[in-house]
């Protein structure tokens, strides 16, 4: 009796697992399939391509637009990540390790910005950027990305830093290490995973953003991939560049998906750290 129930239950969870995998990967498989269909077959309404073709990939890389957007996306997201994590590391260290008035104020400010609707600032930012000459520049996107990811980074890092046995540093110093050595060989390895996790989360946010990119850029000079895809210039005035959109989508999805899969456990830890322990 109980064996049968156990078997049934096992089957139930197995089926559940498979369902989850299908659920998560179906649209991805679809966009990959779409990107591999030759232009003539784009509208065959089939999931699996009848014939395979790389023409859309060739097309997006032959045009100047997509490579430029890719470069902008990578550069802008990387610089924003670097800055946000740097500033957040300072702040999180101070919040966890130092006692000063206004500590909770910083955390609360970060939390309220996490809830802030970005659309509320695009108008003023546009007006400011066009006077300051930041419109359609890398810096014009880096500043808002850095700011809007700071809360995420601060909370994630603070959660990680709380878990670090900081006293090891003192112990190392007692054992004769210089402060720098203690920092380099004890604290850095302990803090690195947290910093790295925060960096991945920040990078994904900046990589994903569409609203700021759509409002604050307009050309290959700073337009990032999400905005470029959404505003893709079709091959004629009235044609929809479905194939190019699909191919570009795959190109930007694959690397980030790989990173996420590789660092799956870190990301899970990071995403839940702020919310549960905070």
């Amino acid at each position, binding site marked *: 009796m109980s064996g049968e129930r156990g078997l049934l239950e096992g089957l139930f*969870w197995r089926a559940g*697992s*498979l369902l*989850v*995998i299908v659920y*998560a990967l179906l*649209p*991805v498989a*679809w966009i990959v399939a*779409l990107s591999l269909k030759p232009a003539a077959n784009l509208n065959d309404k*089939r*999931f699996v391509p009848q014939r395979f073709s790389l023409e859309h990939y060739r097309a997006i890389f032959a045009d100047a637009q997509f490579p430029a957007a890719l470069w902008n996306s990578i550069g802008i997201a990387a610089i924003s990540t670097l800055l946000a994590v740097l*500033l*957040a590391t300072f*702040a999180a260290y*101070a*919040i966890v390790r*130092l*006692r*000063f008035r206004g500590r909770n104020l*910083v955390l609360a400010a970060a939390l309220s*910005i996490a*809830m802030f*609707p970005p*659309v*509320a600032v*695009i*108008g*003023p*930012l*546009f007006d400011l950027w066009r006077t300051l000459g930041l419109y359609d520049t890398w810096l014009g996107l880096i*500043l808002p990305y*850095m*700011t809007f990811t*700071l809360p995420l980074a601060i909370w994630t890092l603070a959660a990680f830093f709380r878990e670090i046995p900081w006293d090891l540093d003192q112990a190392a110093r007692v054992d004769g290490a210089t402060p720098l050595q203690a920092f380099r060989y004890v604290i850095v390895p302990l803090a690195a995973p947290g910093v790295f996790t925060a960096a991945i989360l920040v990078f*994904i946010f900046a*990589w*994903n953003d*569409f*609203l700021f990119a759509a*409002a604050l850029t307009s050309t290959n000079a700073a337009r990032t*991939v*999400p*905005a470029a895809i*959404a505003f893709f210039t079709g091959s004629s005035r009235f044609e929809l560049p*479905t194939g190019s959109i*699909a191919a570009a*989508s795959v190109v*930007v*999805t694959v690397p980030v*998906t790989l990173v*996420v*899969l590789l660092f*799956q456990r870190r990301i*899970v830890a990071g*995403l*839940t750290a702020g*919310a*549960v322990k*905070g």
Partner: protein
Amino acid sequence: MSRPRDPAEERLGWLLCTPAVLAMLLVTGYPILYAIWLSLFRYDLRFPDQREFAGLANYASVLTSGVWWQALGNTLIITVGSVAIELVLGMLLALVMRRALFLRRTVRASVLVPYAIITVVAALAWKFAFDPVTGFVNPWLGLEQPWLTQRWSAFLVIILTEVWKTTPFMALLLLAGLTLVPQDLLDAARVDGANAWQRFFRVTLPLMRNAVLVALLFRTLDAFRIFDTVFVQTRGAQGTETVSVVGYHTLVTRLNLGLGSAVSVLIFLCVLAIAALFVRGLGASFAAEDRS
């Protein structure tokens, strides 16, 4: 644990926090104040010479407009619809991730894929899937439905996209809550003859209350700001415009900074109201946990 405050430590603390705080103030604090200021003017970038003080006229214009109230209604439909489905689905997902040993790593990894995908890409993928000319959904379901050209089916597609994209995040937050439920408590309940249903609703769920509320707060505020999916899938047509899309159109397409800023400020107030509602709803237990 309590040490006396050390002025040097105090200074260092502030020194380390200043860059972050300054950035947050400059890029959000100042612009929102500027938005409030702009919202009091008649200010259209196409007619820059006609800038003049207008008092609350922009707010009157927005609040008496059917467009605003419809957009607010739409935003609430999408928010409530997607968050409710995500809660149920996310809970199931979390249970599968916790209980299933089969393909465990693959399951946990694949769940992160929707989270990592660019929202615009996800929205386009689903848009093409439901497209009557390109997509596979109609043949699979044996329908000839132009999904995104009718209001309610368009909402369905938008909500589906949102749910697909963000359920994993919800599930991970809930999973973290699930791990806080002690296994021996569940075993004890099982010994006492509680079935799976009872164990979930009587033991697991009450213990997860805070995790659920936090997850709901995060997702509700996030869903209320929905922009990318709607912009890509319908551009707000078929009566699916959300408040963020209205704000974007007024500010960026029409360059009407005065009117658009009034919309921005109103969206900001809505978010504040939702947050306040949740914080009150979370009540003492949240506050207590926060302090610990």
